[in-house]
């Protein structure tokens, strides 16, 4: 499995709450060690700039995994998710929704828009470590991503 896994695995965390962002990045870095490279953005707009390599993010490589909060200012997580999953170049990047909401509607909407996983906060270090496993599963365990539903 590791043979197909990129090294390092680049992860983008989009989260508006500073503490949550810090903790999530911290957990991912600890869990992945040298094998991961974690970048973070503060809102959906920055996330899209990052993914399309616009503005400050001109030279960045695209991430292998996106960890996405839903409630964000300006452009929310659903909008980012919809954009990513309807873009031919971006849709193969696995997206894990990490949110404090457990509303059934939020869960079903996220999956309908093509999310690959849905994790509800608070998620301890163990769960966040599992996020990487999600990335590994999609990146290494499958040869191709399923088409997200339209």
């Amino acid at each position: 499995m590791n043979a197909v896994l990129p090294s390092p695995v680049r992860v983008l965390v989009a989260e508006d709450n500073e503490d949550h962002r810090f903790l999530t990045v911290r957990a991912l870095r600890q869990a992945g060690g040298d094998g991961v490279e974690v970048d973070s953005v503060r809102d959906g707009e920055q996330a899209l700039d990052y993914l399309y390599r616009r503005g400050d993010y001109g030279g960045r490589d695209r991430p292998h995994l996106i960890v996405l909060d839903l409630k964000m200012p300006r452009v929310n997580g659903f909008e980012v998710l919809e954009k990513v999953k309807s873009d031919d170049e971006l849709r193969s990047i696995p997206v894990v929704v990490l949110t404090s909401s457990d509303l059934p509607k939020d869960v079903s909407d996220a999956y309908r828009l093509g999310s690959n996983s849905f994790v509800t906060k608070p998620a301890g270090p163990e769960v966040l470590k599992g996020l990487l496993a999600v990335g590994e599963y999609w990146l290494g365990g499958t040869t191709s991503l399923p088409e997200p539903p339209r």
Partner: protein
Amino acid sequence: MRYAENLVFAALAIACLRNWQRERARADRWAAAAFGTLGGIGLVSLALPATVDHALGPNTVLHWFYKILIAIVLCFPYLLVRFLDALEPLSAGHRRAADVLTGATVVATFALPRIPASHDHHRPVWLLAFTGLVLVQWGWLSGFACVRFLVAGRGQPTVVRRRMQVLSLGSFVLVLSLIPTLSTSKGNTGSGAYLASEIIGLVAGVFFYLGIAPPALLRMLWRRPEEQALRRAEARLMTGATTKAVATAVLPHLPKLFGGRVAALTDRNGALIGSQGTSGPEEDAELVALLSVRSPEDQLRMVRPRLLAVPLRNGVLAVEAGAYTPFFGREEDDLLHSLAAFVDLALARAELFERERDARLELEVAHQELEDLVYSLSHDLKSPLISLLGYLDYLKIDCGESLGTTGEFYVERMTASAGYMTSLIEDLLTLSRIGRTQTEPEIVDLAAVAGEVVAGIQPAAPAVSFAVEALPTLFVNGLRARELLTNVVDNAVRHGGRSDLHVTIWSALTSGGDVAIYVSDDGVGVPEPYRDKIFGIFERLGAHEGGEGGGTGIGLAMCRKIVEQDGGQITVSGPDDDIDPPGRAPAGGATFRIVYPASVLRPTPGATPIPSHGASR
């Protein structure tokens, strides 16, 4: 006989003039002209001898006088046809034919060389030709009127149809009046023929009178079928839940009842509630403008003389008579007013309904907003806790060694508190969601649900023994039923006060036929003073021990909300209380009793029925 006939025609003329004065309609003008001339001639001719003894030569005054009289009489069916024309325009061809024929007859009358004496048996050719012309003119115009009246009434409300039938009959009698004339023309001048012509004239007059100005009794009689339909609609009127429904119940009957075209109902603010028979929004707007005038009854007469409006406490009811309708009398006013009283009552009732419904909707919206607020508030409250729990985790991981035993103890207590607060918020969220998300009921096998609930709780309380007896199948929300049982059983285990607690879940039918689910334990029970209190939100009996052991104080409040949503009730009793049904010894601790109405009970396939009251196992 002559007097009677002339009297009838004079009365007719007066009735027509009154109609015309009231409504200034073109049709009434022609009718007034027709019967007015006839009545006038009748009165004048009373002064003349009934029979002409000598042929009147061309140069006598009486000769010209008679000619004028004859000409005017011959105009009568023509005026009748013009009356018809005003009601419903005739084709140009028909009207021209009537004009030409009547014109020719009048000219011929004045061209007569002399008026023959009554007893004169000699019929010169010019007289025969004149008689023929009169026969054609009179017969054709009267016959035409007869048929047209009949056609005009077809498909109209009964009151109009009857009126038209009577007028048609009158016209038919006019045709008949030719027969005696024909017989006299054959030389039979017997008084029988004369009498017959007078009688026929009288009968025609009576028919015309009934048609033009039907007496109130006759109008009421003609209205009977529509009135009966209206009475049937009154039930619908009084149950109308909206003002719109009131309008739909009554308006379609109004024009029929009054033989008109248009009816309308406006509300207290002058806005249109409903209209019937208008040509469209433009006419609606015109009506609304008319009805919003302060004293509509006076003003309306000027603009739409046939519109009768009754002011209500809650609006205005208006109906417009059609062109064919007999004029409105006091009886019509009374009828409309009594109807208006009904409509007023129904409107008041419907408005009350609408207000109540609006208030309820408002309340629902407010309730919804509150629930939404609770949800988003709980959500936002969770966010700092998530950070707190995260940092506590890393405090332990990164700085665990320098914390020491005391420091680690503090971190443990902080983590427990933050965890407790998280579950408080989670429970609060669930509680708010019970009212917020309305899900459809389904068939729920309670025995299966109880089994799963017990299996879920057992690992955390290995020493507790559970017994699940026969439970019914209910038509309730399955997810909520699971939450309910989980909370009640969890509550028993948590607060039973002993690790080897015995919990029994059983059911019975109450004496009232409702279905009761029991969760009994042999623990410490709930002290009597607190038995109602524990179902309140945040009510807990034990001291708050930092989240360990004690619940959040929301679980039982949630249970009550769930049960009440399905129309049920939840109570708790102690070992000394009598429970319904009696006959079963209480387990010794607390017994939670959930009663559902019998309506949610569904048959369980292949299961033994739930023990009825009095049965024990």
